[in-house]
């Protein structure tokens, strides 16, 4: 991974401006695999700890959006419902347009957007947004355009790591963690 060493200070500066975190479902929340049994029933694996990352962002006023293009079933929706995330866009064909709509709706500019890319179809968006992230296990083309490559792979903590990264950069993580450890969260 040495050829993809990133300027951490620069990524931190970019993370300070983030107001929206957007990403696909597969390759980010999952490791792109699914189980299929002999009856054709499918099963997808997510990670519990990513949920605390999403919840932390939401509670601290950073919006989260799923731009779900790859789902075969409604697994992205199920996960969003469980996490009480309203902005889950299912079977999106044009992620760029959807993201532009979201920016307008929220009244933010591209530099306020963090986008996690997991394949070649994400590269254009990654070049456009303020903070572009790549999970540890994505292809080189995606890593090349990322501002920060997570240590954790997709579906194994990449999102949790990203949420901590943003909130630490914004100087809000420590207080939030202290509060949660004492009082829990609503």
């Amino acid at each position, binding site marked *: 991974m040495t050829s993809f060493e990133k300027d951490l200070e620069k990524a931190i500066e970019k993370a300070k401006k983030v107001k929206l975190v957007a990403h696909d479902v597969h390759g980010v929340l999952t490791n792109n695999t699914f189980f299929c049994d002999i009856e054709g029933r499918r099963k997808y694996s997510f990670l519990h700890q990513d949920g605390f990352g999403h919840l932390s962002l939401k509670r601290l006023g950073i919006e989260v959006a799923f731009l779900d293009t790859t789902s075969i079933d409604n697994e992205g929706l199920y996960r969003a419902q469980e996490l009480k995330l309203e902005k889950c866009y299912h079977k999106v064909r044009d992620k760029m347009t959807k993201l532009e709509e979201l920016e307008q709706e929220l009244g933010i500019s591209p530099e306020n957007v963090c986008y996690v890319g997991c394949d070649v179809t994400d590269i254009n968006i990654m070049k456009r947004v303020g903070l572009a992230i790549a999970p540890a296990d994505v292809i080189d083309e995606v890593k090349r355009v990322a501002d920060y490559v997570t240590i954790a792979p997709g579906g194994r903590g990449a999102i949790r790591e990203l949420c901590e990264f943003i909130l630490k950069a914004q100087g809000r993580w420590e207080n939030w963690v202290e509060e949660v450890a004492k009082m829990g*969260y609503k």
Partner: protein
Amino acid sequence: MGRRGSQDGLQIVRIEETTMTTRADAIERAKKVKFVILDIHGVLTDLTLYYTDDGKKSEIYSLHDRLGCAALKEAGIEAAFLTSKITRIDQYIGSIYKIDRLYGTSAKISQLDEIEKELGLTDEEFCYVGDEIIDTGIMKRVGFAVAPADATAEAKAVADYITKTPGGRGVVRELAEFILKAQGKWDAVVEKLSKTGY
């Protein structure tokens, strides 16, 4: 690499092999334990959630933990689940492991206060097993705090004992053996369970 990537104050560190180990007084602490509180996700499970195509959720558990819970019970140590939200899966696992107390709240410290009040127990008579940042508050309070091998660095930092077993692979089994050996009850419990089953 461990399953968790993290930043330590934004200086990136890999958490895998940390220097954090079990505290020297872990056995002394374990001797006083009368009640074990278990976080579910990351302790009884490996944190993976499965969603089927029709929206059903499933998780992985270890049969080792069933023995762990049975052994604690046999020795007169009650175990309870304490997690942010009790789901139907948790209720089901509770019934299999014969756990009567299932607490669903993220305000874990106030729940501990309530249990202490109800049972007349003190902080040092509690063992808490947790893997997450949200568990660190209650872990600092109880007499014997335990973290699974693959817990977050924050949880490991406040743990008195770190199991060799990762979450979802028999943490409670290992812990039960540790506590009951410390209390000198292990051999009798094993003998009993070998005869009666569990």
